[in-house]
């Protein structure tokens, strides 16, 4: 006889879970009692939102399913932002929540909330386990669903009696998962692939538009090989950064609202767009009618619902990006003649590099470039949301997939710091840096307690402009500089860090930047750098919302 909690822990172990990020409470006491002497490591965060983001960071950095755990009611509700963040960026997370005993369900019992109802729109699937005998099977299915096809978060709600009661057997050890309603397509349709290859062979101005799907499907090598063989320039989305080395001659950098001039011009002039693991998000396309207006579009994605959702597509290919690109490589016979086009694109790159005023002021772009120069790609960079995120995307040189973790779809301030904690447990061999704004850092600053307690060597670089910078930028550009509620009073972040037992340095001068970064990276434990940057620095280029992406501010028009 075993308790449901024991069966749960054994099922998690079968899935290879080594770390859980969580926070206890009444309805998960039986689970915590099992964790007490389990081989699974549990990291106690300071807010359940951080547990969800940490599980997400763990998953993005490793490609494995991340796990978080919270109690019923308030604990479960606190996970929601983190779950929604993972959902929007297709990140495999399993969230475990306690629930009131089955006999009290629906009675507004103490700390009851209908978390399966609440999370229905932000999970790939969820379960309310009413019978302990189902635990093994449900865990197996949850990990399978979270990690296959288009990945996403799955929540398992566990009433207290279900985890407390003793049971014979294993609660079903899962075994093979057979779900009639869930059968992702991995191999692209060969006829469609042939059609796409024929278009590639004939194209004069082809561009590859690659996104997060390339990272999720671990298809960077195939992407690189295909781009090189066909000699096609590549632009990546925010989520796709790192899937191609930033300094590869075919890499145009990021496209979209804060994309590079070269990427946005190339898209606009292209005659063939190969959209790979992307979803034509509005931050990428700008005005839809003006996005790749002259291009025939091939769209490869594992999720059929993304194809044709925002933009009509000429050749849809439903399948796993890695598998489809591999097949395309095998079958490719005719190469396009792209030399002239590539020269034209290189011309844009040369005439419109991503720059900034590199004077003697302390500017955020300089900080990021220094970090990039020191790490040379050997680190995991996490960001918060806002200008800090876009400066990092534009000025850091990403060389490998899964070294850039950011909340793209939901744009969750407060994501970065806890996600960085999760990333550390996935890749303890890598330095992990959270590039933050002073606003975002304060959304989950309590996690200083977590990094202090476990001596987690995450480094936080606060690009402190004493503003909600990105909102201020919009107010400056589109609301007549009326800075309505976007100014933040100065905060002594080093003092706060020290109070938690975390070391830090405030940097006020440009020449202090490099030594401070070196000191932070050399420190064994966590570290906070408080960079007092130029307060009204903006992110450029910028194509205003609703404009065509080639109509950029901060780029002299061609």
């Amino acid at each position, binding site marked *: 006889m075993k308790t449901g909690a024991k069966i749960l822990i054994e099922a998690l172990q079968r899935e290879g879970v080594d770390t859980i990020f969580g926070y206890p409470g009444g309805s998960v006491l039986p689970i915590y009692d099992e964790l007490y002497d389990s081989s699974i490591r549990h990291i106690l965060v300071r807010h359940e939102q951080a547990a969800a983001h940490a599980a997400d960071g763990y998953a993005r950095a490793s490609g494995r399913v991340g796990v978080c755990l919270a109690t019923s009611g308030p604990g479960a509700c606190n996970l929601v932002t983190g779950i929604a963040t993972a959902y929007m960026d297709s990140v495999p997370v399993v969230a475990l929540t306690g629930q009131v005993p089955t006999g009290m369900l629906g009675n507004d019992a103490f700390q009851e909330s209908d978390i399966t109802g609440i999370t229905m*729109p932000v999970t790939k699937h969820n379960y309310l386990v009413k019978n302990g005998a189902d635990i093994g099977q449900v865990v197996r299915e949850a990990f399978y*669903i979270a990690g296959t096809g288009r990945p996403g978060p799955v929540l398992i709600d566990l009433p207290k009696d279900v985890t407390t009661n003793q049971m014979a057997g294993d609660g079903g050890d899962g075994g093979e998962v057979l779900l009639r309603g869930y059968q992702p397509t991995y191999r692209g349709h060969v006829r469609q692939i042939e059609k796409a290859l024929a278009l590639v062979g004939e194209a004069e101005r082809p561009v590859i538009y690659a996104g997060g799907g390339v990272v999720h499907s671990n298809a960077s090598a195939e992407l690189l090989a295909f781009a090189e063989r066909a000699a096609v320039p590549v632009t990546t989305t925010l989520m796709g950064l790192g899937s191609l080395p930033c300094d590869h001659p075919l890499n145009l950098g990021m496209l979209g609202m804060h994309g590079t001039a070269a990427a946005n011009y190339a898209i606009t002039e292209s005659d063939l767009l190969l959209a790979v693991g992307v979803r034509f998000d509005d931050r990428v396309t700008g005005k839809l009618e003006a996005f790749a207006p002259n291009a025939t579009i091939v769209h490869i994605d594992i999720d059929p*619902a993304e194809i044709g959702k925002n933009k009509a597509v000429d050749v849809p290919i439903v399948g796993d990006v890695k598998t489809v690109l591999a097949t395309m490589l095998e079958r490719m016979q005719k190469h396009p003649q792209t030399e002239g086009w590539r020269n034209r694109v290189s011309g844009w790159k040369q005439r419109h590099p991503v720059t900034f005023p590199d004077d003697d002021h302390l500017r955020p772009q300089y900080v990021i470039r220094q970090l990039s120069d020191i790490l040379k790609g050997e680190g995991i960079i996490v960001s918060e949301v806002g200008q800090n995120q876009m400066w990092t995307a534009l000025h850091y040189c990403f060389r490998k997939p899964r070294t850039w973790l950011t909340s793209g779809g939901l744009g969750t301030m407060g994501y970065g710091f806890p996600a960085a904690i999760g990333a550390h447990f996935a890749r303890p061999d890598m330095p992990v840096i959270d590039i933050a704004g002073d606003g975002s850092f304060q959304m989950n600053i309590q996690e200083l307690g977590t990094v202090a307690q476990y001596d987690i060597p995450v480094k936080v670089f606060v690009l402190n402009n004493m503003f909600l910078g990105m909102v201020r930028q919009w107010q400056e550009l589109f609301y007549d500089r009326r800075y309505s509620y976007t100014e933040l009073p100065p905060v002594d972040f080093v003092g706060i860090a020290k109070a938690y037992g975390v070391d830090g340095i405030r940097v006020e001068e440009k020449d202090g930047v490099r030594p401070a970064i070196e000191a932070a990276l050399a420190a064994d434990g966590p570290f906070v750098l408080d960079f007092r940057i130029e307060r009204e620095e903006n992110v450029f280029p910028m194509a205003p919302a609703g404009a065509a992406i080639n109509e950029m501010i901060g780029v002299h028009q061609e």
Partner: protein
Amino acid sequence: MKSHTLSLLVENQAGVLSRVAGMFSRRGFNIESLAVGTCEEPNMSRITIVVYGDDLQVEQVMKQANKLIEVVKVSDITQRESVARELALIKVVAETGTSRAEIMQIADIFRAQIVDVGTRTLVLQVVGDTKKIDALETLLRQYGITELVRTGKIAMLRGSKTVKSAK
């Protein structure tokens, strides 16, 4: 823009109806009618949903429905040869005298059954496609309808074709 009749084969799990209905409303669809019940397969249900939208919107919502783990099959049977039926119960004011006789005549023409006879009311049960029920409702309105319930449309392909998928 037009009405589309969608037939869904779903696993009969707790919450499946709210998952399906929630997804339609979240994606901006107003469900015109919805009928659900068990079907020929054990542990499965069929849901018939009528929604209004253009072809592209409906294609998108069908793809989204297909992504729900418990949804096994989704078909738009609007354009295909199908039979569609609804059942309505209509309580109509029928004072003794001419109106009562007229109502019984109308019922007869529509092959509606009188399933309850009260001192001041009759309850009619009618089966048919949406248009037929609408027509009967219009005719009866002059006598005074005090209550009306419709089941929502259920539909099925004609001939040997079915809305199913491989197991």
